[in-house]
């Protein structure tokens, strides 16, 4: 005899976590080749400092940043917002990746980082270099 009252919360939690992981890849930036300091990652084919990924939620807060590269690389990622074509370009947070192929950052790493509404999000390699880097950015809001 199954005790439904005991099992339902567990299933909801389980399903909820999987959906959250698979369906919310965040904003993904990347660039091919050996990407060196000062290079902006691309939003599809466009440098994200020219056109970033639009963010329109109210009360936005930076939640997570995931970084990946082909090689074991050491580099810094700068996360910015702007209004297009670098207008109002503002640094939100910097993440340091040290000799890793992938790294993960959360609020404990960068603290509370509010993100304005109706802006464009951009990412660049601000120090070091990475081979074929990718960055996923998660921003919460309402």
């Amino acid at each position, binding site marked *: 005899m199954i005790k439904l009252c005991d099992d339902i919360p567990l299933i909801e939690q389980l399903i909820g976590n999987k959906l959250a992981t698979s369906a919310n890849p965040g904003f993904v930036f990347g660039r*091919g*080749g050996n990407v*060196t300091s*000062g290079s*902006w*990652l691309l939003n599809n084919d466009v*440098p994200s400092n*020219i056109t970033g990924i639009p963010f329109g939620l109210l009360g936005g807060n930076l939640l997570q940043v995931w970084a990946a590269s082909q090689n074991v690389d050491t580099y810094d990622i700068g996360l910015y917002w702007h209004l297009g074509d670098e207008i109002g370009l503002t640094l939100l947070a910097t993440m340091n990746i040290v000799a890793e192929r992938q790294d993960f950052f959360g609020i404990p790493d960068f603290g509370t980082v509010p993100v304005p509404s109706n802006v464009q999000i951009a990412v660049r390699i601000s120090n070091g270099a990475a081979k074929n880097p990718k960055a996923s950015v998660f921003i919460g809001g309402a």
Partner: protein
Amino acid sequence: MAKIIKNPTEFAIPIKNMGITIPANGQYYIEPAEYRLWVELAVVSEVTPILNAASLVVNDGIEDLNVVDGKNFLLYPDFAKSQRFEHTTFVGDKQFTKKTTQGAIEESFPLIKKDGSPVDGTVREIDFTGSAFSVTSAVAGKVTISQDVTTLPGKIINFVFVNVGTTSNKWLEYGSSSASSDTTPYVSPFGGSLVGLTYMNKTDDTNTDVKIYKNGSLLFTWEIRGKRWAYKTNISAPQPSLNQGDKISVFFKKVNGASKPNTPTIDMLFQVSSAPLAEGGGQTGVV
């Protein structure tokens, strides 16, 4: 072929529209996936003045390119002259000297002078130094030929007088004017000397005096006796001369004792001595 941008300066150079910064005394290797981004108008506008100032230098993986070639290679890759390749590579059995597609095309179509002497030029551009013509053409097929009159002196030009049927005491026609040359003579655009004559007609054993007139005055008489054809280059000095704008007519004077010429041709050869650039003409008074 690679695409590399070098920064020989002491300062990092950002290229905003590409989202990159090329470090001082460093270089940036362009990923093939990003080649097309460099032809975006905004990038071209941003990069062109930097390349013009030689603050950035384009390298094709083999050598640094000059400003013009660098811009073409990077920003205008669809131009034939922009497409570079490793020139030491054999294409079939051909090893090109030039390093661009256009250069290879030019090498594939060498031009040869009529006398077989080497031509220091290509399909695209030829300079026939010292000859009568300069030729410039393009891969696209456009060809322009310009005559350089300064090289004409010394050259031989010819013009022909004819008449159809029996010709006795009659003016010949110049070219195919269908009018006698006393009213429509040959007009010389150059100065020069009469250096050769040929005669041909349809009848054997003909007699005639070929009288050549310049501006209505007798210039020279050539006696044809018992000939069907003849030539003459031993024209006594001083050779009859022409000036720019002189008008030449030919008359066949009857000479008894043999057949009359039938449908004769007189080909006159003049050696150009002066070819000044000028324009002239007249309303009346041909000869």
